[in-house]
């Protein structure tokens, strides 16, 4: 079936990026500039692929959903779905009806899910232990990425940032700023907000107890926005008068803005020389041309509204922060807002040798942050390193033995697909997977085993001791959406190409 082949091809493509010893891919764009991206992130790879096969598109979609929902496990979900389909194909060749396979898969998935629920650990009560859980999860996520060499450092950074959020999953208030130069170790977490802009000429470089007005308004001239409007005058003096009037209008506008009792004015659009000077004279810090994202975020973290008219100062909510000052990061001058109203807000400044490194570091950190914020809400954790898959496989195997009928083949196949994940992790690390998986299975036959694959030493290790953890929510999402996707593709028996337009003579 064509739909199987396409989906499996996609799974095979991203398979090699799985696990701590997974490889990277170069994404070469065929567009202008032939941009090059080096990445290990499944979602990024799949997002940029050019895909024809409809079944393959389903897999790309589930990885996208996984990315939006939980942020991590984007590769795992595609690989698991691919493996399920591979097993299903064998069954179909054995003349088992797809519907029977689906029924078996459903039973297996439910059983596996229950097994996970049973085995999940929850350390919500103990805050120290919970923090160490978070650290472990962050380190596990980061270990497969470019940040793996400094994973402890970044895990700490990510955990600090997420704990500041106090349970909200709003990633908006964590700003990631990339600055080339220095090394990854020079990255740091900063409370407050950093804007990559310059302070206008001759204006104060440091303000305490700032009252901030965030605006999106034209600071050149309020042009009469009627097409073809023009004035007719009969002397030069009158032209000069009009010019003076325009200037006066600007001055009034600036006066109105100053009338808000502010000492910092941030505009999304340009601030021309003339108003800039007026602001400088009034001792107000004015920042021009802040990008839209920066403005919105600034409004959010300082608790101010974005204003575009200035007639009623009472109705405009001003933003507040303790100190605004100019700081240097590497070579560049940036504006730092500290003590902002929204206490959760923080900025992670990433430093790195090149754009490639920075982009990939941002993606990795984003994954870690997403997983952590999910875990803060759903505090259940699991061990990593193929442990959950083995636990599920064991339970599913039990079920297969108890189930009569053809369905049991499908359930067995499900268990094999689950075991494929640790197999791939081992294969990617250049280990003898056949040997390791059988060892692992034997270990798991004992009750309460915590054995998983220890890629670093190349054997079966105790995941609890090694501190390799994964978020329950991620695993659950991987299991459920992979099964659903496989089921959906399995139901398809033919791909029909729609006719673009019906033509008389063709029929």
């Amino acid at each position, binding site marked *: 079936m064509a739909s199987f082949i396409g989906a499996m091809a996609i799974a095979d*493509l991203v398979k*090699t990026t799985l696990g701590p*010893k997974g*490889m*990277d*891919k*170069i994404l*070469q*764009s*065929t*567009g202008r500039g*032939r941009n*090059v991206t*080096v990445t*290990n992130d499944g979602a990024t*790879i799949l997002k*940029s*692929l*050019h895909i024809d096969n409809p079944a393959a598109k389903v897999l790309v979609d589930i990885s996208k959903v996984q990315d939006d929902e939980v942020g991590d496990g984007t590769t795992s979900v595609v690989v698991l779905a691919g493996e399920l389909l591979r097993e299903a194909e064998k069954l179909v060749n054995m003349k088992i009806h797809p519907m029977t396979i689906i029924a078996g898969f459903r039973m297996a998935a439910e059983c596996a899910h229950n097994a996970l629920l049973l085995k999940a650990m929850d350390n919500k009560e103990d805050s120290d232990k919970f923090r160490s859980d978070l650290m472990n999860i962050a380190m596990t996520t980061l270990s497969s990425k*470019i940040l793996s060499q400094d994973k402890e450092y970044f895990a700490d950074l990510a955990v600090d940032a997420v704990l500041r959020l106090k349970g909200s999953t709003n990633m908006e208030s964590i700003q990631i700023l990339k600055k080339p*130069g220095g*090394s990854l170790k020079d990255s740091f977490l900063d409370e407050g907000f950093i804007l990559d802009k310059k302070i206008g*000429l*001759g204006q104060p470089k440091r303000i305490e107890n700032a009252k901030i007005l965030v605006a999106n308004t034209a600071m*050149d*001239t309020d*042009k*009469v926005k009627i097409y073809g*409007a*023009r*004035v*007719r*005058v*009969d*002397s*030069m*003096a009158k*032209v*000069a008068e*009009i*010019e003076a009037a*325009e200037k006066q209008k600007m001055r009034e506008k600036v006066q109105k803005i100053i009338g808000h009792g502010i000492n910092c004015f941030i505009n999304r659009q340009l601030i*021309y*020389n003339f108003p*800039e*000077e007026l602001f*400088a004279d009034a001792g107000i810090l004015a920042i021009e041309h802040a990008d839209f994202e920066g403005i919105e975020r600034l409004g959010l973290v300082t608790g101010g509204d974005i204003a575009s008219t200035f007639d009623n100062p009472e109705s405009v909510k001003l933003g507040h922060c303790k100190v605004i000052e100019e700081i*240097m990061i590497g070579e560049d001058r940036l504006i730092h807002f500290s003590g902002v109203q929204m206490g959760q807000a923080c900025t992670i400044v990433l430093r790195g*040798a*090149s*754009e*490639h*490194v920075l982009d990939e570091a941002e993606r990795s950190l984003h994954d870690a942050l997403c997983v952590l914020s999910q875990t803060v809400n759903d505090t259940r954790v699991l061990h990593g390193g193929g442990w959950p898959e083995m636990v599920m496989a064991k339970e599913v195997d039990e079920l297969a033995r108890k189930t009569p009928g053809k369905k049991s083949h499908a359930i067995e196949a499900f268990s094999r697909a689950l075991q494929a994940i640790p197999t791939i992790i081992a294969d990617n*690390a*250049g*280990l*003898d997977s056949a040997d390791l998986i059988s060892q692992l299975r034997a270990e798991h036959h004992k009750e309460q085993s915590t054995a998983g694959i220890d890629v670093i*030493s*190349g*054997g079966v290790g105790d995941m609890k001791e090694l501190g390799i953890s994964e978020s329950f929510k991620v695993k659950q999402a991987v299991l459920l959406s992979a099964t659903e996707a496989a089921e959906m593709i399995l139901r398809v028996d033919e791909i029909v190409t729609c006719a673009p337009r019906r033509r008389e003579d063709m029929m």
Partner: protein
Amino acid sequence: MAAASAAQSRKTETYTDTKRRDDVRGVNIAAARAVADAVRTSLGPRGMDKMISSGDQAQEVIITNDGATILSRMSLLQPAARMLAELSRSQDAAAGDGTTTVVVLAGSLLRRAQTLLSAGAHPTAAADSLHRLATRAVEILHSMAIPIELSDRDSLVKSASTALNSKVVSQYSSLLSPLAVDAALSVVDPAHPEILDLRDIRVMKKLGGTVDDTELIHGLIFDKKASHSAGGPTRIENAKIAVIQFQVSPPKTDIEQSVIVSDYAQMDRILREERNYILGMVKKIKASGCNVLLIQKSILRDAVTDLSLHYLAKAKILVVKDVERDEIEFITKTLNCLPIANIEHFRQDKLGHAGLVEEVSVGDTKIVKITGIKDMGRTATMLVRGSNQLVIDEAERSLHDALCVIRCLVNKRFLIAGGGAPEIEMSMQLAAWAKELQGMESYCIKEFAEALQVIPYTLAENAGLNPITIVTELRNRHAKGEKNAGINVRKGQITNILEENVVQPLLVSTSAITLACECVRMILKIDDIVTVR
């Protein structure tokens, strides 16, 4: 523990992969190495230059020895090759010098990596040992470093000349390096002694004369002549300078306007009004005591008209027009004044003061020079001269390298010997360290340690010496404990390189080795090239 991990690690170190993935990695390595080989001959004081001709209509030609420039001009399509070009750009940003070194180093490391892979090492094992090697190498470099003080001008000049010696302008290194040092030191802010912002140093190029005529100007220059079509002054002593962002020309509104003239008398009146308007402005300017006017370029209307120039000339005000907006900040910082955006705000306290503003002839063009600035900001301006455009461009690039070298020293105040000495020392110490390690890591580090010898090898080769003799002798001398023995290219033999004054900043070497390792690790970890939209 050690025995156990050795037994286990045996399993990690076999790598079986499909044929196609090997191909991708092989192709990547081959492409990156080809790039490295292309710039290899330009390494060192006796390195050769490249002539770069652009493929388009303009047929522009550049002659350079600067690795970063060569690589940025190459049209590279293979992604791995482009990563190498970016590597040299990163080195340029981080240290400013050593852009060729870093690429040659990466090429050599990749060659060793290929041997390792074909011997069955797992790419991530190689990548991880490379990371450990980089950390260790930086430690070794630190142990070799000699601390310096910024007040030690001699040492700074020495390291700047080492950077200049490999360039086209090497014969002028004795002249350019003190200039670079003085310029750099004059912009270091005592409040932040660890930061040197190269944007505070302006390098201006002027055709004519020779590189000998290059000078450092304590003040400001404009690459344009004073506007004196109406016979205005070209030399003003005790200047009071205003930087204005408005225009001295007839009024123009933002809203579209037209003046309707219905008869002759009106025309006359309009002309008169225009004259009065401008005269009023000029009078206001004159009233503040200003006698030098720097006018920002305006796209909306003429900054000055013939008429206003005439009045300004009569008021004995020197005018420089068409100053770019992004230059305003530099100018106001230098002159210690504020820009004026409106005639109403024209006040004396916004003016800058200077001893002398004059128009001087340089070659066949004229420039405006401002010297003797009162309370001058921490900026510097250099005027580079040369007999043709190619020489000037290369001189500018070389000067940039020299300035970067000093910036490195300001950031990290350590010097290290040049002439291949640190590379040989690292290679020997790392090889000794590799013997203490176990398993694949030991093997990888041993291979990579040897890869570092490519730098002295290439130095010798480019200087026309026998590379094998030189490198073995160098190794011998280092084994005897002469840490600073290096290749003296001028004498063609091994000497204590410190005595020859061949020194470079520590930051250049450390960033070269860490960046090269990082790039190689990245290339090693790639197993597929995916074409995307």
